[in-house]
């Protein structure tokens, strides 16, 4: 299985699982019991799972979430989504080449009666907001059913190996995402009135007020009095030449493979998008021992937190701002990426192309709220609430808090009636507002700095809703500038060198300067989490300032391992002149991010990128229709089939809307696609209502 499995991880524990054998295209392969076919294939270095029936293009993992069908394989004769189907010992898996054949043999089938379950509240989604809402409802003893499509609760928290932003009190800042997931899940499990269905997918809120749910493969109808949509968001995609090659996918898929399945799906990754999702994905990749060749962001500045961006830049990942992807290059699978500088109108500037060898491109260009369950419930006349990303795209810290508010509100509506004012404290709403704040101003370093012999330096210069450093300090020596959650931290008081602020900071943006022994050559303590690139005493490391400027090479003086915090503290001795500047050190070799000697510019026709990957519809086909004045997405779909594929327009809808906007059509003239059941494709076999024969 070579290099494709993560055997060691600085944060996640790697447990040995039972090995089983299966067959792929007549080749015997090893898998771990319980893992999905897709993960097993990637672990064996297989990236192409089949070829599209329309144009023969290579197909592989894309959403890793059962939403599309690009990972389809034939398992024991039946076409299945490999990201959602568990591999079994002795399973015969074949690549899906063109349209699959339907087996002739069917065998007997037994049908049970479809069960109907009544509940006061149905929560769709067990991520940070759904779990937080469930806890509130549980505390009030309200009969609640929480449904989540994954095996473990926590939503995307489960995939987050980094420490969280926010405040300790409201959103467990400084704790790692997957640890928060566990804490919240335990609290939910402890609520007697809350029932949890994991591995259960909601298909639709039907007009007869019943909600179709596949629970562990069995179809059930839930009849709720109220629904909370906490189903999260979906990732946006991008138009660029070659966007249909295999090995291009979103951060969700990437994090699922890497952090859930401990698979290394790539050796050389390039990331498009400098929001928090893209930046964190870069960090996760480094932790998983993946080379991150670079990250391109179309805006002049990354949209994500500056501390995240600074951190990965220091570690050796170049960030190309005002750059966009021009093309993914390769024969069926990604072999390289070409990026280009863009002007203020995001138009490519000729002659600025750079190409990098990479095997995978990760697209992290933002999220869209998952609104369908809300709309369906409204149409059906079921009282509906929303929280988390399904309500508004924000950080998980915000999702947890507004989930709590939603839970409280639902309980209040049930217990006291909709018209009652309720007893949600005003400050909750203020806090909710604060937690979802976008980054604010960028400030300078604290000047003058009151530090004398021993003091922390905060390389955290952008206002973000985060303050665990201030609450963790035992001498109360750290405050935010203006006392609010958003303010940048400043030091003032008595540092005792306890390292707590270094260990809790999610941005790894605190260093400790210690001049006590040698004021000319103080020691600097730097937090470090990239265990896949180990650092040991005596190693020479290139120190970096906050903007990833090199400060010179220095030997490592000492490394202290805080195993329970899964963080190392790397200590160096530097001249006093640069002591305050040292923010980190390069971990990834400079050679990793070298561009190719010559950019790869493939001659291309305008708009030959794909806009609907499922049905293979090009941008040109759709733009031609828009130019004819067609702005009804239903009509575009009827003519081109864009949106008619397995993902149900989840990927192309936004792309087509963007294209229409680009053609100068006002948003109000766009007629939305009619959304119909069902949320994800589901086998006909699960639906029959038993009792016939």
């Amino acid at each position, binding site marked *: 299985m070579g290099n494709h499995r993560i055997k060691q991880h600085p944060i996640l524990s790697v447990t040995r699982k039972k090995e089983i054998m299966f067959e792929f295209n007549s080749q015997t392969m090893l898998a771990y019991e319980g893992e999905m076919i897709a993960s097993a294939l990637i672990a064996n270095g297989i990236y192409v799972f089949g070829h599209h*029936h329309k144009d023969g293009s290579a197909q592989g993992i894309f959403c890793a979430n059962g939403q599309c*069908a690009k990972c389809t394989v034939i398992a024991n004769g039946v*076409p299945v989504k490999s990201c959602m189907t568990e591999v079994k010992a002795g399973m015969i898996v074949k690549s899906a080449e063109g349209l699959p054949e339907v087996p002739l043999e069917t065998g007997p089938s037994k*049908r049970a009666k479809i069960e109907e379950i009544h509940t006061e509240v149905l929560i769709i989604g067990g991520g940070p907001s759904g779990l937080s809402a469930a806890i509130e409802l549980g505390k009030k003893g309200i009969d609640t059913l929480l449904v989540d499509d994954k095996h473990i609760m926590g939503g995307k928290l489960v995939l987050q190996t980094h420490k969280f932003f926010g405040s300790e009190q409201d959103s467990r800042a400084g704790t790692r995402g997957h640890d928060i997931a566990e804490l919240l899940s335990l609290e939910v499990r402890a609520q007697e009135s809350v029932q949890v269905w994991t591995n259960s997918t909601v298909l639709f809120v039907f007009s007869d007020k019943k909600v*179709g749910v596949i629970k562990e493969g069995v179809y059930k109808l839930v009849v709720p009095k109220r629904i909370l949509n906490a189903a999260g968001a979906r990732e946006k995609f991008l138009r660029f030449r070659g966007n249909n090659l295999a090995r291009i996918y979103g951060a969700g898929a990437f994090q699922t493979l890497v952090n859930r399945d401990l698979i290394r799906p790539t050796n050389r990754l390039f990331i498009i998008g400098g929001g928090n999702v893209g930046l964190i994905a870069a960090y996760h990749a480094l932790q998983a021992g993946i080379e991150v060749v670079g990250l391109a962001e179309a805006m002049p500045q990354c949209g994500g937190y500056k501390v995240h961006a600074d951190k990965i830049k220091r570690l050796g990942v170049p960030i190309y701002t005002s750059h966009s992807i021009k093309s993914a290059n390769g024969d069926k699978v990604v072999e390289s990426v070409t990026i280009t500088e863009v002007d203020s109108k995001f138009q490519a500037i000729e002659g600025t192309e750079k190409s990098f060898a990479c095997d995978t491109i990760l697209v992290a260009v933002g999220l869209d709220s998952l609104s369908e369950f809300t709309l369906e419930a409204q149409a059906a006349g079921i009282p509906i609430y929303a929280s988390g990303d399904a309500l508004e795209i924000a950080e998980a810290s915000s999702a947890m808090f507004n989930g709590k508010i939603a839970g409280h509100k639902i309980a209040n509506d049930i217990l006291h009636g909709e018209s009652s004012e309720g007893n949600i404290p005003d400050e909750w709403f203020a806090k909710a507002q604060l937690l979802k704040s976008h980054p604010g101003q960028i400030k300078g370093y604290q000047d003058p700095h009151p530090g004398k012999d021993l003091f922390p330096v905060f390389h955290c210069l952008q206002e973000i809703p985060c303050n665990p450093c201030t609450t963790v300090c035992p001498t109360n020596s750290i405050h935010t500038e203006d006392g609010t959650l958003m303010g940048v931290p400043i030091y003032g008081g008595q540092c005792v060198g306890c390292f707590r602020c270094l260990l809790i900071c999610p941005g790894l943006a605190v260093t400790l300067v210690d001049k006590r022994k040698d004021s000319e050559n103080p020691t600097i303590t730097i937090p470090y989490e990239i265990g896949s690139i180990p650092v040991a005493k005596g190693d020479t490391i290139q120190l970096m300032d906050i903007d990833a400027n090199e400060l010179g090479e220095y030997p490592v003086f000492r490394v202290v391992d805080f195993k329970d915090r899964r963080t190392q503290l790397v200590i160096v001795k530097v001249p006093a002149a640069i002591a305050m500047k040292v923010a980190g050190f390069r971990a990834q070799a400079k050679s990793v991010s070298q561009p190719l000697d010559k950019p790869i510019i493939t001659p291309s026709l305008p708009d030959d990128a794909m806009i609907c990957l499922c049905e293979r519809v090009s941008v040109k086909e759709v733009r031609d229709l828009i130019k004819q004045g067609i702005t*009804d997405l239903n009509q575009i779909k*009827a003519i081109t089939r864009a949106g008619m594929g397995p993902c149900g327009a989840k990927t192309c809808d936004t792309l087509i809307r963007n294209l229409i906007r680009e053609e100068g059509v006002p948003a109000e003239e766009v007629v939305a696609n009619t959304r119909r059941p069902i949320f994800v494709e589901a086998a006909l*076999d699960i639906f029959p209502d038993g009792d016939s024969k």
Partner: protein
Amino acid sequence: MKKIYDVIVIGAGSIGLPSALFLAEAGQKVLVIDTEHAPGQQSNKKAIGGVRATHSDFGKIQLCQRSIELFKSWKEERGDDIGWLSNGYSYPAWEQKDKDFLLDLMKVQHSFGLNIRWVDGKEYEELVPGINTDGLLGSTYSPEDGSCSPLLFSSSVYFHALKAGVEFRFGETVTELTLQNDRIISCKTNKDQYTANIYVSAAGSYAREIGALVHSKIQVFPDNHEAGITEPVARFFGPMIVDMRSRPGSSNFYFYQNHEGQVVFCYTPEPAILGVENLSTSQFLTHCSKRLLEVYPRLKYLKVRRTWRGQYPMTPDGFPIIGYKDECSNLLHVVGMCGQGFMMGPATGEWVSRICTSTLSEKDHQILKSFDPYRDFSGVEAFK
């Protein structure tokens, strides 16, 4: 300013679109008005695409035979692929009474020259490999019937109509048809006002409402049907399969594999659900899948992709209404297609054109008798 046309067609659906095209190609200046924002957005796009001439009535048979000719030659004649497949229709029988009924009907169908025959269970299994043959008595098989994509066909007709000079007003609803004596002198919408010599009601489920604007009672009552579509797979069976048995909850159901390889399926709820209600219910999937898998167990391997709900604009006897009513001499009703508007559309469009240009043949008159608005509506279409 009033805009003057030869013909105004109300409704850009299965009937309105081909009518407009053929009228324009016959030299008429045509305007089409539709409430929706694009062509074919109501019942048309909800049609599953089956096309057959094997009906029980002379008029409908003639109409659909002509439609099939048009569909079949469309790509060659007009250059657009509409996904036509001559995959045939089949009505399998599991009960003797159904077999007897179908065989009786076949005599009538043969007398009209239709290509339909009875196949035994074994031959039927070759057409539909893996079909449940338990108690199967055989099936009808009419290989010249077929299917095509309502979406592709309507888009193609729309673009040809534009080319032929048809004007379209989308997002407009007809609110008033101003009568002077027995003639409409102007047509008002929520946005504008238009005038034409002849008005055509191709309003589908809203035929009754359009008729009421000129005080004509049009007996069209839509009822709801639900349909679904699977992922595409390699072609594995031939004809449309219509299971005409009635079961608690549904009077019949049918399915076929379309040109993309997707299986499209549909049922008729029983008792009928009247009105226009496009939201899906939870019953459809659980009920229809049960019937589907019982008849054709191999379908269990397919994934459902999408389901939807649409209407059959029904008339009391199951036949369309095509013609003028006394209250208004220039409103031509072409309505009440009873769920077969798509398959009857192309030929009906030609008829509409001939009616409006007064070029009907003797045979046309004879055919149109079946659809006379003043028939007594007491008959029942034997083979819906």
